[in-house]
């Protein structure tokens, strides 16, 4: 059967992955492949390796993982042999001081178990875990051993502060989390006219980015949250109608006596926005129309709002938003060969008819895929992803002449160029392009260099390779630079562009 060249939401990435027989025991595989190994003197401190063991292969009889994803630094001076450590158990009991002055308990409150959500994450890499406590505040979670985890404890109730700390978890650990009562962050949410905004959802966001629980304002617009002293952002989401802006006040310094912050909304009166989405073959059904506020009229604090609506059978849409300036995107559904369309700077100060928006059909592009010497590359995968919009993905495979035919939307695209398995000298690369007439006629692979290594784990006294683990090489900017799957012995062999392409 011939290679298929198709619009699909996936592709089989054919990068360099050598057969088992090509892997030398001493770790130097350059002779077998004819490809230079990375220069050990090169600065690769910016590269990390994320390893994802297959969960179906590494679980015990109860389904608990025996290996979890881990992150390592590239070590060219060594052999890049990495041992996945067995998960360890982090367990604990969350308690907190509920400030309840109306109780007969001693003021200012009582210590009691707290139901909360628990998250562990490292700033860099893929190690982490998430769970929640039971009603008694107990939790237990398996995590890859590591240092410097950010532990976030988000209470279910807003009268107990969000707790964020840094912990090392190198072995089974029991961690009592006693959350102090913290300080009050209180104030009023007001309407544009200065009246109380009742039933507005309010929360505090920690400087680390973790958000605390929501509370609601009372009939007079009052809210009160408990937070640890430090820097916070106050957010209000308004009513539960999905059409009120998210209003934020950042860099609120809360000390031990707390802080009072009032938050005022701008005008909430909504105006109708409607239109029709069509294509050369008729109305477009089921497209998403997304309105994102670029600015909202009458708001003194930063405010954000995104509203989405779908087109109906005649291709019509209709929604309501507050006055402001909006970006309007029309996003065809996945599998529909129509280009998205975007309008910016759309002013909405009254009911607004956007008229008929015509979505163009995809354009067929024929791209020559070549190596750095200009030689056509057969079997290369070209994966184009919409830059923004719906981030739809389209793929074609180059034929024996190195030509790839692909139907693409007429919008900016991120293109992943993925070499075939018989070209370990070529590296995965990312390029920017625009579909339609601006699509380049030729895509050139960068030269690559090999990064080899082995992923291992310990079974009793024995060290074994980890098979079928996905190995991703990520640069300092978080860009995927190479990917490989380990073989039955745990060996991997990825080719990456080196030196790195200019950004």
């Amino acid at each position, binding site marked *: 059967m*011939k290679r298929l060249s198709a619009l699909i939401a996936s592709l089989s990435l054919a990068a*360099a992955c050598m057969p088992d027989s090509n892997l030398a025991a001493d770790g130097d595989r350059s002779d077998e492949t004819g490809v230079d190994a990375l220069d050990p003197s090169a600065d690769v401190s910016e590269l990390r390796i994320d390893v994802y063991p297959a969960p179906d292969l590494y679980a015990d009889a109860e389904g608990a993982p025996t290996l979890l994803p881990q992150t390592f630094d590239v070590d060219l001076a060594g052999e890049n042999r990495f041992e996945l450590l067995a998960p360890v158990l982090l367990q604990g009991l969350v308690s907190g001081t509920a400030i309840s002055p109306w109780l007969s308990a001693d003021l200012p409150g009582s210590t009691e178990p707290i139901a909360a959500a628990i998250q562990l994450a490292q700033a860099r890499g893929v190690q982490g875990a998430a769970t929640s406590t039971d009603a008694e505040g107990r939790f237990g979670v398996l995590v890859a051993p590591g240092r410097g985890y950010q532990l976030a404890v988000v209470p279910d109730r807003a009268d107990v502060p969000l707790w964020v700390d840094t912990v090392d978890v190198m072995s089974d650990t029991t961690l009592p989390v006693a959350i102090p009562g913290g300080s009050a962050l209180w104030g009023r949410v007001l309407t544009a006219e200065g009246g109380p905004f009742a039933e507005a959802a309010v929360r505090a966001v920690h400087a680390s980015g*973790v958000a605390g629980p929501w509370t609601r304002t009372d009939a007079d617009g009052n809210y009160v949250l408990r937070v640890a002293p430090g820097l916070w952002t106050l957010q209000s989401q308004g009513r539960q109608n999905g059409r009120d802006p998210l209003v934020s006040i950042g860099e609120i310094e809360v000390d031990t006596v707390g802080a009072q912050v009032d938050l005022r909304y701008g005008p909430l009166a909504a105006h109708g926005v409607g239109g029709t989405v069509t294509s050369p073959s008729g109305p477009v059904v089921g497209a998403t129309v997304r309105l994102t506020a670029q600015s909202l009229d009458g708001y003194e604090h930063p405010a954000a709002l995104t509203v989405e609506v779908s087109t109906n059978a005649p291709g019509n849409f209709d929604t309501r938003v507050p006055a402001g300036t909006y970006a309007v995107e029309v996003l065809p559904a996945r599998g529909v060969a129509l280009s998205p369309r975007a309008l910016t700077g759309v002013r909405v100060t009254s009911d607004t008819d956007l008229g008929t928006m015509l979505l163009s059909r995809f354009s067929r592009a024929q791209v020559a895929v070549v190596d750095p010497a200009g030689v056509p590359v057969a079997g290369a995968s070209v994966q184009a992803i919409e830059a923004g919009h719906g981030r739809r993905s389209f793929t074609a495979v180059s034929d024996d002449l190195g030509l790839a035919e692909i139907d693409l939307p007429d919008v900016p695209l991120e293109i992943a160029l993925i070499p075939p398995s018989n070209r370990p000298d070529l590296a995965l690369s990312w390029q920017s392009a625009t579909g339609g007439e601006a699509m380049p006629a030729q895509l050139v692979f960068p030269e690559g260099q090999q990064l080899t290594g082995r992923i291992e784990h310990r079974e009793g006294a024995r060290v074994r390779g980890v098979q079928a683990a996905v190995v991703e090489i990520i640069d300092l900017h978080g860009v995927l630079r190479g990917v490989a799957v380990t073989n039955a012995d745990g060996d991997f062999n990825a080719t990456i562009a080196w030196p790195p392409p200019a950004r």
Partner: protein
Amino acid sequence: MVWHTACMLSMSSACLYLEPAWRDVNLRPEILNPADFVPGRTIERKLRSPVDNFLVRAFDEDDDELLFLWEDPSSAYEVLDLPDQPGTPRIQASQLRLAWDASLDGEVVSCQVFDGEDTVTVRWRIVLDGVDADFDSGADAREVEP
């Protein structure tokens, strides 16, 4: 064939035999991972935090080019494709990456593996601890200055 059988039964000394035309039989892709894949069965999968990968590795006895068509419950995902592993037949693979999100509890992720003729579907149901968790930072809400 009927004629040929009747001829044989009539004890005729010479029966013309026409060999049936040879038809290629397509062999369906065989799923290597997930290892606990059983056709038609939905696999329960606990989503790992902060991101998790759903991996499908397959080989096709005919060595057909396989297409991996993912369907997921969230728009916040990436399809990250994987190297072929050479061999006869080679192993082809694809994966979908999902960020941990409490709202994914109970949702289904599926991958159709298509060899140009037959399709094998792998299906997972996500199970989560901590379904009440709210870890979103609000950073994804695009703020604009007044």
